[in-house]
């Protein structure tokens, strides 16, 4: 019995002694690193514009600031956060429930309708027709370091990304954004001042490119906005 106890103690002792050796071994040979990225993606609460009519204009606001934990005095390592506002196609609730939210978002982003004018296209079964081109992101820009995007833009273009910076030690610790919707018209059913409506919001936009097919009348459109942190320092 004593011998068995002694053997067990020896085994435990050897194990404990070999842990630091393992540490050294692991650091140089077994190199598997897992680290948290400073990227953070935040999806604000769904905002519903409700039923809208062509050439209508509506606004709603979003406020981006630091969390309580970041604002704590003990957190003084970094104070400035750069972020961008991205637009992504919105998956339908049934599709999200079917394959999961992340997969559904990825599918809607990676695919597009075979016929954008067909409301029965297979894409629209899973994803809403895109509202993204008609949403602007306008910063109130109290700190003067934010860049907005007007409506009537290509949501997938790199130039269609709004940027912002918030500084924990700044005068204004947060950014107010106005997300406004310039409602498009339907082909052959647009008012005479449609061109002025479009260029009034975005002088660089081609009014013809932003008319919707009449087949999509009465459809619900959607767009996911994501605030993505790109750098902290």
């Amino acid at each position, binding site marked *: 019995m004593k*011998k068995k106890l002694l*053997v067990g103690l020896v*085994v435990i002792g*050897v*194990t404990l002694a*070999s*842990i630091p050796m*393992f540490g050294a071994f*692991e650091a140089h*040979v*077994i*190199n*598997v*690193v*897992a*680290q*948290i*990225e*400073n*990227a*953070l*993606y*935040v*999806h*604000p*609460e*769904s*905002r519903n514009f409700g039923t809208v009519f062509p050439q209508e204009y509506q606004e*709603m*606001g*979003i*406020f*981006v*600031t*630091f*969390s*309580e*934990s*970041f604002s704590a005095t003990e*957190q003084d*390592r*970094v104070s400035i*956060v750069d*972020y961008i506002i991205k637009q992504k196609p919105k998956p339908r609730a049934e599709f999200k429930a079917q394959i*999961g*939210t*992340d*997969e559904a978002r990825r599918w809607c982003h990676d695919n597009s309708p075979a016929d954008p004018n067909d409301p029965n296209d297979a894409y629209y079964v899973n994803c809403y027709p895109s509202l993204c081109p008609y949403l602007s992101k306008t910063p109130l820009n109290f700190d003067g370091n934010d860049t907005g995007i007007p409506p009537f833009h290509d949501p997938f273009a790199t130039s269609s990304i709004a940027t912002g910076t918030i500084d924990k030690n700044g005068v204004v610790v947060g950014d107010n954004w106005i997300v406004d919707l310039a409602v498009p018209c339907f082909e052959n059913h647009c008012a005479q001042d449609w061109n002025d409506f479009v260029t009034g919001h975005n002088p660089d936009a081609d009014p013809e490119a932003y008319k919707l097919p009449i087949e999509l009348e009465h459809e619900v459109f959607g767009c996911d906005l994501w*605030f993505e*942190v790109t750098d*902290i320092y």
Partner: protein
Amino acid sequence: MEEQNIKQENTNTPAKQAEVYPVAQPEADGTGETKMPKEEKIKKRMSKWDKILIAIFAVILIFILYIVLDANKYSAMVHVVEGEGKVGINPTTEALDFGDLSRGTSAVRQVTIENGTFVPMYIAVFKTGEIGGLMEIDDNFFTLRPREDVQIDFSVYMPASAEIDATYKGRVFLFKIPWL
């Protein structure tokens, strides 16, 4: 008939037993105390299989200890705030902090895993605490091949039933198991 008196000796008497099984008698050691003489110990040597089993057990124990000690352990937390269209962010890397979220909002943090070895690694992620019920992991229980890296997304969605001003905390354990 020759009677053979087979005289069977009866060994059951105490005297006979003392002859057959001598009983150690206490010895005087000069101090007035008596002590028992050293008993003959029957040495039982460990068999070869015993040694092999102990060695295997030790290796397994060391392996398990390595896996547990090498696992990445992160704190995770999210704070619930009131209001619509408001988000508070904390993108620091000390913890999986999802910031301040109002009901109906969601946040995603990422963990990058790089396998710089020549051995495949089996990745297993476990979550605990109140935040565990709010958190989704987009990829779990998979093998990371040598010299490859992968990004795991951790998503938190704040439900409508979340308590305002509450902070949901927990921990995330990320195990990396050499997988041959």
